[in-house]
């Protein structure tokens, strides 16, 4: 018995050591095989390809990005991006699924940079992922663009960023813009309610909205806020709770399938006949509501994206190309992804580098830059030149004869809705928006 055990244990030791070494070398070999030629620029694109955020956000973003990457490689973009490639190099995009949570994403980021040897990383819809990846990006000194995440904490947590940029706007801009739109178009509204998904995005949005309302519509009363679970899907009870409070306006930062479900259910229950809904991410449903949202529902697109894109060569090209390929006009996630790729091209073309630009050269080119995009001119004007400043737009949904459009669109300039450097965003709102100009 003893001898058998001894032998077995030796075998176990040998096999276990062999396994570990084998696995390690497999990993190292994986590293070797992904080295790529130096005549292309490799960018990692991280977005939701699975789970509830993939349908409304991740997949359209991926599609928008791919469209622009193809056009860059063919040189078919309108001016000023009509040169082939980025800094003359072919652009190669590898995709990674953003699912799995921040800890997983930190791991995947490291894999992208160290195993797949990407030259830059673009992505991140979830605020949690942005917050976790930011410090790692700085540590690994890799040019990184966050294109969608909406946390106002991003550059509060990241002191003195060198490599991390954000080409999208945060929840503060969304909700200050919403409050201003309400103050301008429905100044007599007195009873305001809300329904947000119960997680950081929903909580932050509601906080920013109510703080802004205190400043801009002090007579209005906040009567209720419902906080259903994310992906709950069915809001019968929450709708009842809202109805018992008789609101005139219902604010919501819900997105994707949840937003569509809520709108359909609230409409069927008559809540949207009693109150007007204000949806801060509503633009992603512009071509999906099909009249389920009553005319007059207020929609936002997180800035001049999707249906809010201004008319310029880039946006017209993008809308046409996207609709041709995917059968529907691009929604705001697709536009924002396109914008981030354009930012990369801008940075690469202007880096002055010979061959593949380094992260430092890219960062220097994008810092504080003003570049053209599908949303007009993007001014990287905050957080020391790392955060984009753009106007915030809201409009009303109108559906007639099978056609959806935005009416009564109002635009608020960037520094009207975003806090200047040095301010904590919530403090800025509470002090009455010092330093803003809103005409």
């Amino acid at each position: 018995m003893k001898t058998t055990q001894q032998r077995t244990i030796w075998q176990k030791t040998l096999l276990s050591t062999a396994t570990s070494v084998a696995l390690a070398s497999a990993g190292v070999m994986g590293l070797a095989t992904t080295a790529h030629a130096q005549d292309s620029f490799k960018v990692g694109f991280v977005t939701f390809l699975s789970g509830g955020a993939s349908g409304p956000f991740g997949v359209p973003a991926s599609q928008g990005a791919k469209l622009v990457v193809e056009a860059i490689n063919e040189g078919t973009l309108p001016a000023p991006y009509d040169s082939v490639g980025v800094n003359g190099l072919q652009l190669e995009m590898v995709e990674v699924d953003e699912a799995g949570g921040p800890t997983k994403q930190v791991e995947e980021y490291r894999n992208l940079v160290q195993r797949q040897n990407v030259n830059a990383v673009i992505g991140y819809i979830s605020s949690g992922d942005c917050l976790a990846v930011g410090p790692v990006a700085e540590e690994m000194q890799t040019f990184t663009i966050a294109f969608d995440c909406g946390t106002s904490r991003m550059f509060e947590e990241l002191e003195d960023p060198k490599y991390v940029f954000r080409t999208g706007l945060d929840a503060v801009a969304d909700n200050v813009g919403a409050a201003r739109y309400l103050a301008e178009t429905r100044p007599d509204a007195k009873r305001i309610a809300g329904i947000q998904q119960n997680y950081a995005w929903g909580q932050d949005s509601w906080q920013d909205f109510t703080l802004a309302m205190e400043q801009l519509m002090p007579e209005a009363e906040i009567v209720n806020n419902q906080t259903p679970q994310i992906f709950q899907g069915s809001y019968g009870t929450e709708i009842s709770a809202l109805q018992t409070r008789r609101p005139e306006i219902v604010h919501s930062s819900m997105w994707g399938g949840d937003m569509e479900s809520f709108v359909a259910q609230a409409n069927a229950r008559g809540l949207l006949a009693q109150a007007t809904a204000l949806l801060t991410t509503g633009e992603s449903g512009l071509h999906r509501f099909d009249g389920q949202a009553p005319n007059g529902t207020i929609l936002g697109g997180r800035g001049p994206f999707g249906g809010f894109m201004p008319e310029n060569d880039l946006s017209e090209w993008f809308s046409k190309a996207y609709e041709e390929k995917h059968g529907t006009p691009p929604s705001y996630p697709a536009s924002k992804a396109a914008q981030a790729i354009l930012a990369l091209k801008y940075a690469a073309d202007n880096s002055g580098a010979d061959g593949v630009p380094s992260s430092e050269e890219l960062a220097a080119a994008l810092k504080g830059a003003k570049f053209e995009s599908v949303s007009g001119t993007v001014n990287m004007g905050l957080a020391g030149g790392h955060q984009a400043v753009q106007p915030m737009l809201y409009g009303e949904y109108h559906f007639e004869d099978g056609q959806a459009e935005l009416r009564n669109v109002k635009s608020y300039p960037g520094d009207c809705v975003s806090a200047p450097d040095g301010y904590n965003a919530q403090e800025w709102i509470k002090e009455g928006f010092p330093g803003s100009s809103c005409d």
Partner: protein
Amino acid sequence: MLTVWAILIDGFIYASWLFLVAAGLTVIYGVMRILNMAHGSLYALGAYAAASALGWYYADGGDQLWMAFAIIAVCAVAIGAVTGLAIERGLLRIMYGRDEILMLIITFAVLLILEDVMKLVWGTTPYFAYQPYAAMGRINIDVLTVSRYDLMVLVVSIVIGVGLWFWLERTRIGKILRSIIHDREVSKAMGVNVGRMFTITFMIGATLGAIAGGITAPIISVVPGIGIEVIVLAFAVVVTGGLGSITGAAIGAIIVGLARATSIHTMPELELFIIYAVMAAVLVFRPHGLFGQAVARKI
């Protein structure tokens, strides 16, 4: 007073939905002692099948409400039965007699696989077949409104509940199943074809899950991941009510539904974990759930 009415109405509507979701799970566990994690996938399959079929129907210009219900029923039953059969015959049959926990893990693996299969087949765009829900309109009670579709779900759930109870208590097959629940070995010794009973049970449980999904499809936007959200809810209800008991599932659903409605209307902070708190509280006083049977342990 308005709030009390709202709580009662909302509570029972939510409870009816919970019961529909949990019924299949408790039937399968009761007879086969398998906690089917893939139940969430069947719910999602039913939802996707119904939503896409309804989408075609309405795009083609259809607008008959009864036709929509027929579509839901047919799609859900078809996909539930076929998938249930495939899983039971193809996979579970090989694994009978193994550790209970291995069966749970197998169904977990099936859940993972089906999640991606659904994504490959239906894509990630939300499916939004709201027409039946909107078409049925609502009833106004003061400032509250109740959707007629939700009331229909309540009725369907009662019918299915009563039907299940009747089937288990009064029909011959039901009695055979109950004998298997009490003692599998002795039933086999008495000549019951346990294997075939298992297949039938699993198919019925799967179909119930798919029906729950199909009926919910017009209310929600069908996206990847709805299956996973639903599993834990179903588990909590089933455990609270007592595994294998239809009555337990119904009472468990009612308790959870009312607790949740009360929380949302009066103390929204608790909403996120009220269901787990209720389950834990029930288990403290009734360790096998409300109607669970204490199983005599064989020494």
